[in-house]
């Protein structure tokens, strides 16, 4: 069992890990509160993972359930792999937050509520007939009822804020209390407040006062006795410099790094769409890093501009989510036919169609592998966590330029928004893969191939003596002239396929993440199921079961040893946040009777769900 397992008891006991969720109205600043608690927790050397859960609406009317915004953090003294199955401490800033989050609270867990917000009106808006604080709804949980609103207003009185502004400090009050609860050093929060409100010192001071008041409440009220404060000792963490990293940041920096390692300018093109827009927002300011960003009129224009960029000698990268990727597929075919580098980032979200844009899913695997007209092979790479996203994005860039091919890069809404502490690598340690543009006219043929990679040469327009023309009509396999010849089409079709299959020689053999080759059960995953699979398998292994975890990064082509590896287990289970896509690919490729374990409700797997499913096989 993972997060939620280590029940805090009344004596301020040590915990191996804990899960805290801050939940409130969109206007309550829960994302900031969570991020600040994360900072303080990271400083305390806990390992951690976070997951923000935004409402789908921009700003739903205050107090409604669909306007609830939540931020969850799971931290511990051991390696943390998910944002936690069950919540140990739930901070509910209003009735709607209580309503929508209570289900996830572990029985016996602690609820901290702001009673000041439990007005009749707010109860109604949240759909409570009775006040849940009074009608037994919370039986079986431990609850701490505080009128945070009033106490905050009290605390900030000296700073002369209006009532509305005063009340807006209550998230800091809550943060102070939770900081106290876990023995966090709140200086980092104070520093941040000072910086953020540098130009509005009264606001900064008021927030700090609220923070301190919440903390003081913990210390002075009979809290310690009644609820205990918790100690989560530092984890055994690799020494070095850390930062918090979201998946979107990981991808963004990985792309910048990839372009740099290739020695290229990065042309990043996109059209806003949730959750992919984050990449555009992160890259747009990086003009000092050889990055040009282009917000196109639609996804088609975006991918075409990226291909144009690659044609002209930049690394063209385009990004979207499922529906936008659908629009790009025709143009991706052109990049395949003209054999130009391109990275297509898909930040997957719930579907079909508009679906559940703010929820996570990994249901675009089919689209990535198969979703184009004609025989259109390309490389597919998937990342499995924020930190991994950085390295996987570099890998995608490497394959694109080395093999002159589009690479589909898969991430998802969960990875994009989740954050984890990241041991910052030294860029100088990365292996560069500099591109050499062809400039020598001698013997140049447009589709002549490098014997090792099967890639054609990359020539920048502007190069004297290498004038040529390319396009989407089938081309002669050497000269690049239009060719309707039957044998040539067969040869080019084979070349396109074999070039991609050949990448298999250039990627690491499939490793076993936990366990060993051969045995009873392999749990095989890809993408953001990494955390829950990893923890579920380690829990089961700790119980003495013979189960291994294999996580696939290179989805097209797959590592050459994968087939034999899978066949070395009695059973292969494939958990996916879709109706069973990777499992189909594995079955077709290796004729192994891999079994699907599917979940499509917009939420990541819980560890117990995987553990429960494993029971049938162990």
């Amino acid at each position, binding site marked *: 069992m993972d997060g939620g397992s280590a029940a805090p008891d009344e004596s301020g006991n040590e915990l191996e890990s804990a899960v805290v969720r801050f939940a409130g109205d969109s206007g309550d600043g829960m994302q900031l509160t969570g991020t600040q608690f994360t900072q303080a927790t990271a400083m305390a050397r806990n390992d951690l993972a976070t997951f923000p859960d935004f409402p789908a609406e921009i700003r739903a009317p205050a107090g409604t359930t669909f306007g609830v915004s939540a931020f969850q953090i799971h931290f511990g003294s051991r390696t943390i792999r998910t944002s936690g199955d069950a919540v140990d401490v739930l901070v509910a800033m209003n009735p709607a937050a209580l309503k929508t989050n209570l289900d996830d609270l572990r029985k016996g867990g602690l609820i901290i509520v702001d009673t000041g917000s439990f007005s009749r009106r707010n109860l109604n808006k949240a759909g409570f007939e009775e006040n849940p604080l009074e009608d037994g709804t919370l039986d079986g949980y431990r609850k701490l009822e505080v009128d945070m609103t009033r106490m905050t207003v009290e605390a900030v009185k000296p700073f002369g804020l209006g009532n509305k502004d005063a009340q807006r400090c209550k998230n800091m009050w809550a943060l102070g209390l939770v900081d106290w609860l876990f023995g966090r050093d709140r200086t980092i929060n104070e520093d941040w407040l000072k910086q953020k409100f540098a130009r509005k010192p009264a606001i900064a001071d008021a927030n700090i006062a609220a923070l301190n008041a919440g903390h003081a409440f913990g210390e002075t009220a009979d809290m310690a006795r009644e609820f205990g404060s918790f100690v989560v000792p530092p984890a055994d963490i690799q020494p070095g*410099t850390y930062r918090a990293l979201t998946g979107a940041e990981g991808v963004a920096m990985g792309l910048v790094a990839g372009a740099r390692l290739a020695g290229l300018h990065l042309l990043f093109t996109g059209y806003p769409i949730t959750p992919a827009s984050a990449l555009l927002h992160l890259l747009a300011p990086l003009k000092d890093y050889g990055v040009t960003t282009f917000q196109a009129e639609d996804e088609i*224009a975006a991918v075409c501009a990226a291909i144009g960029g690659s044609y002209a000698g930049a690394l063209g990268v385009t990004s979207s989510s499922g529906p936008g990727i659908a629009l790009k597929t025709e143009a991706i075919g052109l990049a395949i036919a003209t054999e130009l580098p391109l990275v297509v980032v898909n930040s997957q979200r719930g579907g079909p169609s508009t679906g559940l844009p703010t929820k996570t899913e990994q249901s675009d695997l089919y689209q990535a592998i198969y979703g184009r007209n004609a025989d259109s092979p390309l490389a597919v790479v998937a990342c499995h966590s924020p930190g991994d996203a950085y390295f996987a994005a570099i890998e995608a860039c490497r394959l694109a330029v080395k093999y002159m091919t589009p690479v589909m890069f898969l991430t998802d809404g969960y990875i994009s928004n989740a954050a984890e502490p990241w041991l910052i690598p030294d860029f100088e340690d990365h292996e560069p893969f500099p591109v050499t543009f062809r400039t020598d006219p001698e013997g140049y043929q447009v589709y002549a191939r490098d014997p090792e990679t099967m890639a054609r040469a990359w020539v920048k327009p502007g190069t004297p003596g290498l004038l040529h023309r390319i396009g989407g*009509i089938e081309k002669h396999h050497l000269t690049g002239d239009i060719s309707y010849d039957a044998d040539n089409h067969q040869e080019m079709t084979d070349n396109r396929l074999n070039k991609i299959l050949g990448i298999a020689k250039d990627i690491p053999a499939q490793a076993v993440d936990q366990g060993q080759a051969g045995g009873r059960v392999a749990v095989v995953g890809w993408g953001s199921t990494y955390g829950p699979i990893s923890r579920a398998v380690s829990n089961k292994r700790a119980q003495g079961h013979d189960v291994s975890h294999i996580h696939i990064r290179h989805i097209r082509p797959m590592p050459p040893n994968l087939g034999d590896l899978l066949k070395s287990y009695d059973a292969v289970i494939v958990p996916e946040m879709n109706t069973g896509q990777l499992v189909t690919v594995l079955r077709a490729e290796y004729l192994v009777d891999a079994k699907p374990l599917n979940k499509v409700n917009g939420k990541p797997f819980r560890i117990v769900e995987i553990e429960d499913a494993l029971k049938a096989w162990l």
Partner: protein
Amino acid sequence: MNVQTPANLSPKDYATDQEVRWCPGCGDYAILKAVQKAMADIGADPANTVFVSGIGCAARFPYYMETYGFHTIHGRAPSFATGIKLTNPDLDVWVVGGDGDGLSIGGNHTLHAIRRNVDISYLLFNNEIYGLTKGQYSPTSRLGTRSPSTPHGSIDSPVDALSFALGVNARFVARGIDRRQDHLPGLLARAHAHKGCSFVEIIQNCIVYNDGVFEHFTEKAVTADMQLEAEHGQPLIFGKNREKGLRLNRQTLELEVATLGEDGFSEDDVIVHDETNRTIGGALARMKPPDFPVAIGVLYCAPAEMSYERAVLAQNRAIADKAPAAGDMNTLLHRGSTWEVAA
């Protein structure tokens, strides 16, 4: 292939060794000739020139130009061109496409390339038909056009390419005609000289699927009466004996044709073409036979301070120049809050 220097090239130096695969008699041949002539006149460096096209008969164009060429997909050429210019603004980028390519499937990209003012020369070959797919009507086909997809005649009214361009803030709008070899190369040179998106409609006869639809103003015999060559600073006069001119109807605020010397209409009353004037440009663009001649030449030209990709790069550079640790990757990786974990 050998290294060429731009000096002293003749039109045929811009021709490739590829067999030209348009139908015999197609207007595209004439346009190809005019473009090659314009390239020689300009002294264009083939290695620094890129022809980008979509799909269609017109879009075959790059194969016949001894420059760099990218024959892309249907309707999206302006987007590829935008990516190319953003990557290397020093390239001379020409976009070529048909009326279907540029105004049907590609209308939106044409719109936004114009609006952004990307420094490309967009040549729209308007034959008022889908040539390559065998003759279906297009968004520029006239009402009642019979085609395989409109066997009983089309019933949606056509769009005028130049009015559309002006409606979305085009800063260079011109019209040429395949048959006017005397006029077209000069027009293309003007388009090339314009910094920003130059939009040129070229009237082109599709001899197979739409033969003769333009002959009421392109036939030799009617040229003088049915074409008006707009030239900046010159009065808008036309006709075999240069006897007709355009004036403004004060009532309707629309243009009208009048005969010089009749009803007291003198050369002084003729509107002088001011290519920087959007109202004149718009009115000229809209003129249609039989009541009006077709306006050709540069109808509107008002360059912006900077084209889109130049402005993007200028902004990039300005930011980069100000950035202290410009480009240091480790600085980027460490941005924001970090903390140390000691051994």
